[in-house]
């Protein structure tokens, strides 16, 4: 592959900031397609002919069509697509790439972020709460920890996508994306294992009555919900039970 043309710092920054709004016009037809074109647009201005050129308009039209991926890893797609357009890749290959990268970027992002980093950070903040942290401490733990990785992932994605172009599978092979979810899941198990009982303990701190019984009940409920997981979502069962208690508390 030839070396990637250097993008001006201002272009990088514009694309990067716009990536945070990539889902701003999410809809059921083109999904985040319009957002992809919106984010990549500052870089497309560098195509031959600039903003008035045929290449610019063709690229904008191509990339505002259907696209879907994990919003953070959409950065990887935008980087790769910008590189492909600036390199003058064949249109058919670019189209084929757009189709092929939606799913893998969605899957990798869902595993790493939605089913990994987010619940981990959530559990970490619950642990901070359980250990007695103040409200500010809990919020800083959650928002700070989560977003260090969030912002870094978007920045890495844009750079790696631009560096690899259509060979973005190389970037997707990064250990962070491949084995990262496994390590995060292990850490989640440890942190959540510690956090949930401590949360119950602190929630009940002012009324230390029968915490052993309550921990036992919570564990039983968790196991029952896990067993029924194919049939129902646990939180729906929680809603029904809470509703029954609320009705009891009102009519009693």
């Amino acid at each position, binding site marked *: 592959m030839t070396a990637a043309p250097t993008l001006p710092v201002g272009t990088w920054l514009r694309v990067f900031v716009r990536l945070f709004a990539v889902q701003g016009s999410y809809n*059921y*037809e*083109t*999904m985040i397609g319009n957002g992809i074109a919106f984010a990549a647009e500052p870089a497309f201005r560098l195509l031959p002919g600039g903003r008035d050129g045929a290449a610019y308009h063709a690229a904008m039209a191509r990339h505002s069509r*259907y696209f*879907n991926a*994990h919003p953070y890893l959409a950065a990887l797609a935008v980087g790769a697509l910008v590189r492909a357009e600036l390199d003058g890749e064949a249109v058919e290959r670019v189209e*084929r790439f757009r189709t*092929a*990268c*939606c*799913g*893998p*970027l*969605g*899957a*990798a*992002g*869902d*595993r790493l972020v*939605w*089913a990994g980093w987010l619940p981990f950070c959530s559990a970490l903040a619950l642990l901070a709460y359980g250990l007695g942290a103040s409200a500010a401490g809990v919020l800083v733990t959650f928002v700070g920890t989560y977003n260090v990785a969030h912002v870094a992932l978007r920045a890495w994605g844009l750079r790696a996508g631009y560096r690899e172009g*259509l*060979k*973005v*599978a190389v970037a*997707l*092979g990064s250990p962070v*994306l*491949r*084995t990262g*979810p*496994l390590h995060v899941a292990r850490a989640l198990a440890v942190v959540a294992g510690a956090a949930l009982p401590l949360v119950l303990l602190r929630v009940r701190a002012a009324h230390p009555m029968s915490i052993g019984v309550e921990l036992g009940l919570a564990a039983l409920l968790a196991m029952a919900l896990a067993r029924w*997981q*194919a049939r129902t*979502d646990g939180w729906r069962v929680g809603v029904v039970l809470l509703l029954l208690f609320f009705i009891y508390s009102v009519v009693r």
Partner: protein
Amino acid sequence: MPIEVYRIDDRLVHGQVVVGWGQPLALGFIVLVDDQVAESAWEQDLYRMGVPPEMAVHFESVAGALSRLPAYRLLPDPGLLLAGSTAAMRALVEGDPDIRHVNVGGLHHRAGRSPRLRFVFLDAAEEADLRAMRARGVEVSAQDVPGAVPVPLDDLLTRSGG
């Protein structure tokens, strides 16, 4: 173990498949059936990266899948078969009588397709494919993730986007 789900999804490997179905079913492998992908190394590289390292992904053409499906069903872990089009799934159903359920997981907007559900857009040929599968006694329903309520084919074909 049997193949638990036979899914039509034009995004092929993505989060709903790998996490949404993969985690509750503890999937050990995916059979990805697409004639074009089966011949394209770089696309296979890309799809492989969407699947966790502990989950195997086998790329097959329709003909290859038909000859090897009995062997996949003997693997020790539960699996999921993914086809990118109704035509590919119809060919599989016509060639393999052991496929009894087909899950329409996602067919997205494209010129000529009409909206049926938020995640299902169909053209006339695709509707005919789904009807042909049902005519062979196969249960066809649309469902994106395991927690969603499946929409039976008859219901699906009367909807207009909702």
